[in-house]
């Protein structure tokens, strides 16, 4: 059996995307923790272009960029499929995956900044949440319909990391009264057994990111 290794870092939401999909499809893998302050030779060898995690190593071949890794996993291990079969529905799913990739960083800008820069990031985040609630999710239980799919995985950061950003920065982004559908999605997503069993401990995560934000702001 070919071996699968995953280079990642706790508590990166991009690393968790790959964990969720590997577990949803029942794929055994070895986790290799990377210290991002001291990048190891394995990371530099397997992702020379970006030097970032996550990296999937399958039979010695490396694949980088979380959503590209997920499409690869979906193609090699099609069981418990996480993409629609119809090409048009797949195009819609890929549209929202790209939207998540392009717009979710606004939340991390709220985390990394203060003052005017943060105000802009807050506006961008709210706009992203509005579009996601209205157009991507609508009245569905999950982005994938009745079950989660790669779009839910792509938006997975909203499940716990968003709350962490709000708590660390004292900025409310997702007001449940303004985003009732997204709030319901967060609750449902976190109840999916594989997701529930594979989320970082909240207190540990909060402490980690709080310290990180203090360091980022003090070095400006």
């Amino acid at each position, binding site marked *: 059996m070919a071996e699968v290794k995953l280079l990642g870092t706790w508590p990166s939401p991009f690393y968790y995307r790959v964990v969720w999909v590997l577990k949803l499809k029942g794929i055994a893998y070895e986790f290799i923790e990377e210290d991002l302050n001291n990048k190891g030779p394995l990371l530099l060898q397997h992702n020379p*272009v970006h030097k970032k995690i996550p990296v999937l190593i399958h039979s010695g071949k490396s*694949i980088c960029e979380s959503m*590209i890794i997920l*499409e*690869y996993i979906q193609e090699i291990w099609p069981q418990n499929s996480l993409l629609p079969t119809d090409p048009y529905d*797949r*195009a819609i799913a890929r*549209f929202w995956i790209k939207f998540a990739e392009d717009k979710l960083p606004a939340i991390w800008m709220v985390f990394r900044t203060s003052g005017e820069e943060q105000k802009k990031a807050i506006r961008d985040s709210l706009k992203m949440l509005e*579009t996601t609630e209205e*157009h991507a999710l609508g009245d569905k239980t999950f982005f994938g319909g009745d079950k989660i799919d790669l779009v839910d995985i792509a938006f997975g950061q909203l499940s716990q990391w968003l709350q962490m950003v709000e708590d660390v920065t004292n900025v409310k982004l997702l007001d449940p009264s303004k985003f009732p559908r997204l709030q319901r999605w967060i609750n449902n997503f976190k109840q999916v057994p594989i997701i529930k069993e594979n989320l970082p401990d909240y207190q540990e995560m909060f402490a980690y990111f709080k310290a990180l934000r203090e360091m980022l702001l003090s070095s400006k």
Partner: protein
Amino acid sequence: MGEEVKLHGMWASPFSRRVELALKLKAIPYQYIEEDLSNKTPSLLRYNPVHKKVPVLVHNDKPVTESMVIIEYMDETWENNPFLPRDPYERAMARFYAKFIDDKLLPTLAKLGQTAGKEKEETIEEIHEQLKVLEDELKGKQFFGGQRIGYLDIVAMILVWLHLTGSITGQKVLSTEKFPLIYEWIERVMKMEVVNECLIPEEKRQDWIQLAQRAPKSASN
């Protein structure tokens, strides 16, 4: 057959031109609608309410948006002349380098027009590092797609635009000494009629440069 394909595009958008090239490579008949981005058609706004951008491919009245999503959709719907390789690892590589071009190279190129002096030199350095990644990808290959033009070649057409506009602006970011394989690739693809049909016409290249310098990514994906 009852297949109706329309493309809402804009002549100066490399993203729009990508989809045109893809349509021509698969010999899919289509109706082209040129959008005036300062006065978008109601159809465009209806088909792409989230971004209101070109290109939009409309297949039997169903819209697909985002150039790379459109190209994957086309590959899954019209199976002739496939763009993506069959092997999942090769597919992942094609997607990886296409993302690299769109997320790294294009924004750096867009920045170039807005910098001067030392900052400009640093930007050119950055572009050279990024171009080296693509140069390395061409080693031992005729095209990015191997023996035939494929998914990554379609995205890499920006290199042809860079070469053509470089001759006008005098801004030689691409040099034959530093990037011989990219140059050979450019010469190879420019011999293809479909590629030439999708380049900015010569008489519009000056306009394009000015447009690109003013509003690099405002209206297309």
